[in-house]
Each structure stands twice: as C-alpha cells, then as structure tokens.
C-alpha cells in the first residue's frame, strides 16, 4: 500500500498553482494520472521520487515512511526504489544505448535480461549508438527500457509512449503490462491517451489545476456512462455533404469512418468538428477476429 499526501505551491511569476492531492495505491496496481497540460502530474511524480520537496505531506510505502514533513523525514531519491521514465527522456549523452541500460541495472539483473529488453523495444541495431543520433521515438524506447531494466518496486512512467506510432505503442503497452505483472510491480503512469489508459490501468486519477477532480475505474471515469450492449458511439463529424433533401455525414469514430444519413432538419444543426452520439435502435453484432 502506498499512501500519498502532498501539498505544494508551485512557484510561478503569475497565477500560482496550489497542488493538493491525497491518494492510495495498492501493491501490484497500475494507476494512471490523467489531466490537462500543466495540471501538476509531473510535479507529483517528482515529489514521489524525491526529486522535488513538497511544502507539506507524507508518503508511506508499506511500513516505510519515505517522507513526512512534520517529522522531517525525507528519504533521498537513491533510497526510494523507483524506476522512472522522464517526459524529456533524460538519457545520458555520454553513453551508448547499451551503456545506458547497463548503467541503470542494479546488481540483480543480468545481461540476458538487457538483451531481451533491447529486442522487445526494437533497438537491436541501435545499441551502440549515442542518444544524440536517435529519433524521438527511439529515445523514448530507450528511456522505457532503461526504467524497466532496474526491476524497481515502483515504476513511474511519464508519458512513456507519446512519441510512438500505433504499432510499437501497442506492442509496448502489452509488454509494460507483462513486466508489471511478472515482477509484481506497482506502476504509476501518466498518459493522455484514452485507449491506453483504459487498456492498461486499474485505477484512474484525474487532476485539474493541482486538485483531484475524479477518480475510479478508468472506463467509468472516462466514458461517463455504463458499459452496455447497446451499440452507441461518440464520434466527430468530418464532412457534411448535401444531397437533395438529405445530408450525408461522415463521422470519425476511433480510427473508423462511417457514413450516416441525416434529414434536413437534423443536418442543418450540425457542423464540422461537432461531437455526435451515434446509436442503433436494435443491434445484434457479429464479431470477427482480425489477424
């Protein structure tokens, strides 16, 4: 059980942000912090890792006290067993990819594990390259591998996959989940990607301006309505074409695009980029596996 209570006024020239959060994480859980840019997600991460001192607060991890401002306890980052993927990667420019990983590992993990990791993040060809010569996505993958190589007790991932394309992103999501379970990690994720959050996390905390505004099971928090067998989707209007007395409307739902017909009255109310709910009255879906 990780118990976090943090308060910090973030210094700013104007418009101070007062961060005040309190939450619990069970061992082995994967929770996600979600919220607008500048809401305070990275700052919370830095405080949990011991890189930023809160004004007030405490962090208990199982029976250990990592931080207690009242008792003036404050473990240095070195003694909090944490793996961290930084939003800005923070790769060591003087070391190759392989050396970055080797440096990160404690005594416990062996070269074989590093080799495996390099294969999984698809960096086999690049292991002797310096970070400066990598593309954005390649850097991000190295940063992720470097955090995993430590087999930490708590894994903190600050947007670990934002620079990646759909395919590798999917692959790494699965892999993170796998590692998370296999090594019984407690994982905290920061992500903006809704499908990523729903797929990966057990619990979601939504922040706004330094406060927790919602929390719960991701699907419930994010979709706002119960999961049902009803076939209804929220989508976005891409184009509207008039044809005689009807409108042909293309709607983007996820990565699918469908055409819907609307009558004149309906059609006139709609415009491009509107969000719409599309539902079927009666539906009996068929399901096909795609290979």
């Amino acid at each position, binding site marked *: 059980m990780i118990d976090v209570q943090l308060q910090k006024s973030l210094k700013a020239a104007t418009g101070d942000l007062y961060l005040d959060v309190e939450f619990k994480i069970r061992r082995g859980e994967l929770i996600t912090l979600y919220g607008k840019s500048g809401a305070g997600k990275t700052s919370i991460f830095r405080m949990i890792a011991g890189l930023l001192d809160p004004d007030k607060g405490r962090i208990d991890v199982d029976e250990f006290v990592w931080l207690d401002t009242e008792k003036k306890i404050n473990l240095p980052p070195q003694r909090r*067993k944490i793996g961290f993927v930084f939003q800005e990667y923070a790769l060591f420019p003087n070391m190759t990819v392989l050396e970055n990983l080797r440096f*990160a590992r404690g005594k416990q993990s062996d070269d074989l594990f590093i080799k495996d990791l390099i294969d999984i993040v698809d960096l086999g060809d690049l292991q002797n390259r310096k970070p400066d010569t990598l593309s954005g996505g390649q850097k991000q993958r190295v940063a992720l591998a470097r955090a995993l190589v430590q087999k930490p007790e708590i894994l903190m991932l600050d947007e670990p996959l934002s620079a990646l394309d759909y395919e590798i992103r999917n692959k790494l999501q699965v892999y993170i989940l796998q590692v998370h379970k296999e090594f019984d990690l407690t994982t905290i994720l920061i992500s903006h990607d809704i499908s990523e959050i729903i797929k990966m996390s057990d619990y979601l905390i939504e922040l706004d301006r330094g406060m927790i505004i919602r929390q719960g099971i991701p699907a419930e928090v994010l979709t706002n309505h119960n999961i049902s067998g009803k076939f209804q989707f929220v989508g976005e209007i891409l184009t509207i074409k008039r044809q005689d007395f009807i409108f042909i409307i293309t709607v983007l739902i996820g990565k699918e695009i469908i055409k819907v017909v609307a009558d004149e009255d309906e059609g006139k109310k709609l415009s491009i980029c509107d969000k719409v709910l599309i539902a079927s009255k009666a539906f009996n879906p068929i399901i096909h596996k795609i290979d």
Partner: protein
Amino acid sequence: MDWTPLILTFKLAFITTVLLLFISVPVAYWLAYSKSRLKPVMETLVSMPLVLPPTVLGFYMLIAFSPSNAFGGFLDKWLGLRLVFSFEGLILASVIYSLPFMVHPIQSGFSNLSSSLKDAAYVMGKSKTTTLFRILLPNIKPSLLTGIILAFAHTIGEFGVVLMIGGNISGKTKVASIAIYDEVESLNYVAANTYSLILFSITFVILLFVYAVNGGFIKKFWQ
C-alpha cells in the same frame, strides 16, 4: 644544453595539473550546486590569487611557509615538510596559483548541464559520487579540457611564484621558465631562444595531441 629544467618543468606541470583536478572537481561541484549565501564570496576568493603579481604572491607564500612562522613551523615540526626551496613547495604554490584556471571552467560546465541527468541517476539509486564520475564529468568534457589545458600551460609559463618559493636550485627547483629568464637577463639571447623554442615545441606537440584526440581527428584518420 641542460635538459633538467625542461624535465623539471613538465614534471611540475603534470603533477600540479593532476592535483588540481582532484581539488577542483569538488570545489567546482560545491560552487555549482550550493545554494549557500557564502557562494559568491567563495567564488570570489577562488579568483583572488590571480590578482596579485606572482612575485608578490610568492613573497607572501614565502613568509607563510617559512619554518619560523606558525604555519610553516607546524609543517616542518609535525610533518617534516619543508615547503621553501623544495619541489614540494613549488607544487603547492603552483596549485594555489593555478586553482582558478581549473575551478572556474569546471564550475561553468556543471552549471550548463541539464539537471535532469543528475535526477535520472539519483532515481536509479546511484550515489552522488557515482553520478559525478559516470554522468556529470563525462558530460562536461569540453570544460574539463579547458581547465586542464589552462592549468597545464599556465604552470609551465608560471615563473614569479616559482622563482620566489623555489630559490632557483638547479635540478630541484630551477624550472625551464627560470632558466629562460636567466639567459635573457644575462643577455644570452641565443640560449634563451633555444630554451623557449624547445619548451614551446614540446608543449605545442602535447597540446596539439590532446586537441586532436579530443576533436576525433586521430580517430578519423586511424580508421
């Protein structure tokens, strides 16, 4: 041609530079990362040896190191260390005098470095020392090099302090800069030129080699 002054010079420059590295890295580290109010004072103090004319600085050191004074007496009595007219004394004097040339560039190197690298290493459980040696120092190589070159070259040319503390004892404290000075003073311009030329050439080759290795030129032509 007497080679001892030249050998002595490079020995002095080399030892001084190595010692300075050991001293300057912690000092520069403190100066770069401390938030103490004393920081500007310390920064200023490090620069101060530069301000006095070398001979005068040497004279003050001479007085401080003299066995008849408290400090020098203490060293003499308890450690058996004689700092005047000895090679050890030359080294200490050179270290003090060249300190700012090493400390300042390294400090500015640390200051320019992104703090996220330090954070990343700490989170991995690496100690401050490991972080310093494996992450910080390798990433400020240009600054380290600047410090090393300035301190090395300056110790070679340094002469006022050395003359004062060393007492010009041949084979012991008579370094090349003093030998050249001697020749100029006694109007032996040819000998002075020869010494200068040799000193110049050897140093030129050393520095050129360092810069070429650093710039990757050697590597490029090797392959």
